[in-house]
């Protein structure tokens, strides 16, 4: 009969298997044979890092959700503009020249919003640039000073920029871990 296997030793911090003569855990660096003070200092530091990481994750997720929803809201806004301008200009022969660009914009933002679940960064950057260009052309062609519309513009741009920042953080993590 073979002798019973020795009990498996586990690290107190990460619970990975360790050897009897290890001074430090090979996986997380926990001082197995260190003093109580060293060990508790290590645990405290590790907890802080975990807390920080989970905070980043939560904030990142929220911002990405908001930016994705902004793309859908923009799609809705352009579809609404298409419908309104269609009924206002119904008898004008140039009606298609106004309605079709709005429709195309609506469709493009809808696609960007849906595709942003897979290709987050690409869709947010594309959406932001398209939105800024459309607004800029609109301002050049119909100059006006409307505080309310500027406020909405600022909110939309802020959401999208925060989304891009978060997407960049995720891309960085992906690149570091060779996930892509």
């Amino acid at each position: 009969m073979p002798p019973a296997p020795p009990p498996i030793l586990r690290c107190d911090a990460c619970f990975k298997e360790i050897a009897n003569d290890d001074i430090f855990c090979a996986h997380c660096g926990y001082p197995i044979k260190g003093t109580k003070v060293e060990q508790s200092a290590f645990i405290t530091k590790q907890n802080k890092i975990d807390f920080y990481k989970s905070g980043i994750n939560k904030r990142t997720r929220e911002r990405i959700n908001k930016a994705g929803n902004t793309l859908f809201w923009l799609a809705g806004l352009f579809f609404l503009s298409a419908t309104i301008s269609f009924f206002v200009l119904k008898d004008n022969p140039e009606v298609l020249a106004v309605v079709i660009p709005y429709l195309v914009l609506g469709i493009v933002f809808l696609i960007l919003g849906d595709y942003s679940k897979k290709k987050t960064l690409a869709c947010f950057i594309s959406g932001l640039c398209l939105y800024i260009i459309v607004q800029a052309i609109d301002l050049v062609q119909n100059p006006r000073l409307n505080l309310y519309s500027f406020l909405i513009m600022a909110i939309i741009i802020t959401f999208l920029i925060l989304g891009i920042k978060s997407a960049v953080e995720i891309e960085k993590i992906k690149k570091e871990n060779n996930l892509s």
Partner: protein
Amino acid sequence: MQQVDNELPDKKPCIQCGTLIALDGNFCNQCGAKQFVEDHISAKKTWNYLTQTGLFYGISITACALAKYASIFETFSWGLFFDLILAINAIGFFAISWKENQKILQWKSFSWSKLAAYSSIAMAASVLVHYSVGWLNLVIYSKDDNYYEQLKGSIAGGLLVVSLTAVMPAIFEELGFRGYLLQTLLKITDKEQAVFISAFLFAILHFSFVSLFWLIPFALFAGFVRIKENTLWYGVFFHFCFNLTACIFELL
């Protein structure tokens, strides 16, 4: 324990104390030293790359928008001036990271058959786009656009049109978008997303809703060719042939 000198060692020396430790260990089990070097490209640096591309794109788009929408800039010489600004912008940003970017200016995989294939794809696509865009413009805007009407007829005028609409954009748009922009985006994200972003930004720079449907596939194709062949020049020729065909339609 003696190290066996075989082909696949299962131990590595600790970078601090030299003790042999497990190959997949993150820390030395004797001295506690960390065994991997952390990546120092911070999120801030990535963000800086992104704002730099934003500056490049902002300058490009301002020049294009002014040339197209501001009525005081509608003269031919102002058009030339904005073309010059776009060219300088592309060259300048491309030169910022010259050391990394110069490798895509090399043409190691040169082959006549590939060049002929890309050129014929470009010409076929251009013919297709010419007829479909003409039809779409008639349907939506009830008009038939014809640019450079006043330059038609003379050989010098024809050459000027060819150099302004085929040669200049082919070189400088490729240098700016498939060169600088794509190279910088590749540092931030993966190939697919980088090609997609550069293609989309390139397409909306032309301020035409009707043209979006062919500009995006065009730019995606040019982007993937650039990545696959690892050189800018196939894209330049592709772009040149495409624009040249369009140009010949305008001149005839």
